[in-house]
């Protein structure tokens, strides 16, 4: 049995505050990569992001069954089909499933567009390189999206076609995180060597 003494670090309020501030900074400055390692206690960054934001008030979809029963117990959120979920957790190394249709919000409630937490590896340094511009970015910047399948960027462009509707992506590798809010314009530039 888990006691209050061995609650994983990412579920402790102090750690969640630090994780949130890093995430807020990433969301405000798309293209910046934050290292969460100091506050995750060894947990994967993607799980840390979910822990910092989810509680029993929100719905989470896990279409690829990446979370364990223990994760669900601590996250406390409702399991939900993708189309209704506020948060969606996926692995980004393969192309998005053809039937993946996240909530995009409505014209009067764009905040109900889903937040998609995508797990990759080698964020920031390797793989699919993109050029970003838009709110939060001084002129433009470059970001390596690691093992993210390019299909996700194509699909994101479709989802975010009609601002203010869209989805916000939080891309995580083992310990680092970067955000692509719906306002960010993404140009694919090929692969990092």
């Amino acid at each position: 049995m888990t006691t209050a003494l061995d609650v994983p670090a990412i579920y402790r309020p102090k750690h969640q505050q630090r994780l949130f501030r890093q995430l807020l900074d990433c969301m405000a400055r798309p293209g910046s990569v934050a290292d969460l390692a100091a506050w995750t206690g060894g947990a994967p960054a993607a799980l840390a992001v979910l822990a910092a934001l989810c509680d029993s008030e929100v719905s989470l979809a896990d279409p690829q069954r990446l979370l364990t029963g223990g994760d669900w117990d601590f996250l406390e959120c409702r399991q939900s089909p993708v189309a209704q979920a506020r948060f969606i957790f996926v692995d980004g190394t393969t192309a998005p499933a053809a039937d993946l249709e996240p909530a995009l919000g409505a014209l009067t409630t764009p905040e109900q567009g889903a937040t998609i937490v995508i797990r990759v590896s080698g964020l920031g340094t390797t793989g699919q390189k993109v050029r970003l511009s838009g709110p939060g970015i001084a002129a433009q910047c470059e970001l390596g999206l690691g093992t993210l399948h390019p299909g996700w960027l194509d699909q994101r462009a479709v989802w975010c076609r009609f601002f203010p509707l869209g989805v916000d992506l939080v891309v995580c590798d083992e310990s680092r995180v970067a955000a692509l809010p719906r306002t960010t314009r993404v140009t694919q530039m090929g692969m990092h060597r």
Partner: protein
Amino acid sequence: MRARRRRKPASYGFGFLDENAKKELRRALLKAVAIPGHQVPYASREMPIARGFGTGGLQVTLALLGDDDTVKVIDQGSDVSVNAANLRKFFALVCPGVQETTRTTEATVIQTRHRIPEQRLRDDQILVFQVPYPDALVVVEPNAAKRREMHGAANYARLWTKLYEDMVAFDEITISHRYPTRIARHYVIDPSPIPRWDVPKLHMADCLYLFGAGREKRIYAVPPHTPAEPLSFSDVPFRVEDFNDEHGHRRACAHCGATDTFLDELLGADGTKAYQCSDIDHCTQTAKAEPCERSSKSAA
């Protein structure tokens, strides 16, 4: 009178709000940043101060603060007014470890009532606004549901018409504060009752601006490096307050001598007017840094 007993900080959880409330605020804040200028609804909690005294800003700040933060609170530029001093004391009481400061440069989080500090904020600083009326369209459309539709479609025709009518009637746009400002070329926000002087500081800033309206239960944001354009006509450019005297000379602050700051008009007992910086910290620092220059200015 008996001195008030000091309450033990331990009687509250860190940051006063419960963790679920903070998480909800944090989710709303992230969406607000992702959709610049959009008013994200949230469940505004009852706070130990009355609604209308900055509960929105207070909740946003409490959701942000960690024990490594340094917080500053200003009320119309002043760190020492009742509203600012009490909010700052409240943060110190419920957030053990958080440092209080009055220096703009030292703060990581600044909560403000109706001013943006004169000194340009850095990219590691967050400015939290207390917002009484979050919706710029409220002056032209009383129905909240209709306003949300108009915002979604970026339909600001009636706001433009209001500005045009001002020009027809008064030869000038008569909005002195809460100047409607377009964020990232879509949403028009009410930037809270900051003077026109501060509106250009929202444009392509280095810092993050967060807006919390407690009574109206809305949160919105202007991310760094985001265009923020006050509504104006191509032949009637936006202009800020004019601090020139009757001879056309820029008035200087009576305390520090600065001629590039927002000035408050102070009336003396004998009816004389004096002008002084509204941003007290900036004024104090300028006065400290340039005593020689100041004395030469006052001699002239």
